[in-house]
């Protein structure tokens, strides 16, 4: 089973290579290969999720540790990894199935699939690698292909958004590289588990390392915060996510900012650094501010995808808030059950957000595909001509605003309950308040886009429902919005969420599991 781990990188990377070579000669080969390999990744993820327990390690090149010091590049598969892989492959498959019809408007379709596969390879690589420099390399693969995908339409706005994204993303990558250099300088190793052990040893013996620890933590928050678009670093997100082709917007908002931003932040701050109160507080406060700012900025938007992009900032804030409260409780030595509840809420919301934000972006893309505009003021009455898109978008909006039978309600409820139990009443109140703001702007979106007039304008133009592959992806995602609320049932939660939560709760076990000491 251990030897299957590299497949998560090999399959998409190999397919990207094959498609780049053969796509020129065999027509439409990319459209067959990409959905098939995404489906195989979904299968592999479920296979790991249901059949394996604990931490699996694959050592690249087969080099065994010397004197307990790991020298090979480690690939690690544990509960948290499996959860993020599930998100990547599921949303990735649905987005690529949607693109089969959507990309017909572009001139060089085959390059779209090559870049998409590279992006999947990069994200999978980040998630499974247990080595901090490898994380950087895969992060650059994912980021570079996403820059290219944002500019894929080569229109004015897309190029401008892509340039902005590249400059800020480039600075973030360089800050991350600087941090990696500093960590290597201080600890002499790149393996996350080994760094964690070195830092724990150093922390107790030297007074100077604490300053050093704070310095690299701040640099890491800046670097990965830019990638995750949390509050002071969010300015690129609305441009990039609203200008990209819609399936890519769904991937960027739903998966990329989580895989290369939130995942790395929680992996490093829980499992690599010793937990400290100040850092946990910083992360929680940043999460809270981005939750509020994103929500407030979203209300005023008239561009449908721009509103969804601002909403992503707000929802990422929720995820960070949930995880941050967990960190705070663990750092202050509080009740572990409360921390577990809070982290469960955060990870559950991460899973949910990728589904419903993906769904909303795909619906917005369907509207844009048929009407040719993103301005809500020019829409209205579309529920008459686009019944499927209208229903799925409504389900997505209800789920993200937290209306009971849908998944978003339960994850937000868990976060709020955890905040109250941890006695952070202000944070709980703000979470409820932002939830109300969320309802407000999604009501605006629904009203101006799909209702508001009788749609005779669109009937005259003979607008039809979107093609099968687009409708199929949206319907599956809408069903998932309802099905995922089953995760509140303890037995189901035990399979999907509990292994991931355990990795974060027993943070110190990560290095002992991997180093085997």
């Amino acid at each position: 089973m251990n030897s299957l781990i590299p497949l998560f990188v090999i399959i998409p990377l190999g397919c990207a290579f094959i498609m780049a070579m053969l796509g020129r000669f065999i027509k439409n080969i990319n459209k067959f290969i990409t959905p098939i390999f995404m489906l195989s990744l979904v299968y592999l993820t479920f296979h790991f999720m249901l059949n394996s327990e604990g931490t699996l390690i694959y050592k690249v090149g087969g080099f065994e540790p010397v004197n307990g010091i790991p020298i090979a590049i480690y690939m690690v598969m544990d509960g948290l990894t499996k959860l993020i892989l599930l998100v990547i492959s599921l949303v990735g498959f649905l987005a690529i199935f949607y693109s089969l019809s959507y990309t017909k408007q572009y001139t060089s379709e085959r390059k779209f699939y090559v870049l998409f596969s590279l992006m999947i390879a990069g994200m999978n690589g980040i998630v499974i690698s247990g080595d901090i420099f490898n994380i950087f390399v895969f992060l650059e693969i994912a980021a570079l292909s996403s820059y290219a995908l944002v500019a894929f339409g080569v229109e004015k706005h897309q190029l401008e958004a892509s340039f902005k994204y590249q400059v800020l993303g480039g600075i973030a990558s360089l800050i991350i590289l600087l941090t990696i250099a500093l960590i290597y300088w201080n600890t002499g190793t790149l393996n996350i588990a080994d760094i964690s052990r070195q830092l724990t040893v150093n922390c107790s013996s030297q007074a100077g390392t604490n300053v050093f620890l704070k310095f690299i933590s701040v640099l890491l928050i800046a670097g990965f915060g830019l990638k995750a678009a949390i509050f002071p670093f969010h300015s690129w997100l609305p441009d990039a996510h609203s200008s990209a082709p819609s399936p890519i917007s769904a991937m960027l908002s739903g998966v990329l900012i989580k895989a290369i931003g939130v995942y790395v932040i929680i992996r490093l701050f829980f499992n690599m650094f010793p937990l400290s109160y100040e850092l946990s507080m910083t992360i929680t406060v940043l999460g809270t501010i981005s939750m509020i700012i994103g929500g407030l900025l979203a209300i005023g938007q008239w561009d449908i995808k721009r509103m969804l992009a601002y909403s992503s900032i707000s929802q990422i804030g929720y995820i960070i808030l949930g995880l941050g409260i967990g960190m705070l409780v663990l750092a202050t030595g509080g009740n572990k059950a409360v921390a577990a509840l809070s982290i469960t809420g955060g990870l559950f919301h991460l899973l949910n957000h990728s589904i419903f934000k993906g769904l909303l972006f795909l619906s917005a893309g369907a509207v844009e595909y048929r009407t040719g505009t993103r301005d809500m003021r020019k829409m209205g009455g579309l529920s008459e001509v686009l019944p499927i898109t209208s229903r799925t978008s409504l389900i997505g909006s209800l789920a993200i605003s937290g209306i009971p039978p849908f998944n978003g309600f339960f994850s937000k409820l868990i976060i709020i309950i955890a905040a109250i139990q941890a006695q952070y009443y202000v944070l709980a109140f703000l979470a409820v308040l932002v939830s109300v703001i969320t309802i407000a702007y999604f009501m605006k979106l629904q009203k101006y886009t799909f209702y508001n007039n009788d749609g005779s304008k669109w009937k005259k133009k003979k607008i039809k429902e979107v093609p099968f592959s687009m409708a199929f992806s949206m319907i599956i995602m809408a069903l998932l919005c309802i099905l995922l609320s089953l995760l509140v049932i303890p037995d189901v939660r035990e399979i999907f969420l509990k292994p991931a939560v355990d990795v974060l709760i027993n943070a110190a076990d990560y290095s002992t599991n991997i180093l085997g000491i």
Partner: protein
Amino acid sequence: MIIYILCFILFLVGLYGVVSKRNLIKIIIGIAIMEYSINLFLIMIGYIEGGTAPIITKGFEHAKFVDPLPQAMILTSIVIGLATTALLLAVAIRLYQKYGTFDINKIKDLKG
């Protein structure tokens, strides 16, 4: 110690270029300078006073070697930097074709 500070100043020079310049090409040059400063920093970490290349040959089994790992890392990061710069320049050229200028003050359709 002074050499590390100089390296950090080089990083700041690049950052200044990115933040304050208005020309797209100058911004790209700024990013390239930042990247080189970090590569320089990495190579200095691995350097040992009086060390030789880390190749074990007869008679040199116990010689003082420099750390080879940062060198491998730099090779990777140079390749990544090449890709980043190439993509940035490609987008800058397309932007010039669309807007007819490299001035970022004139390229600001996206707001709000």
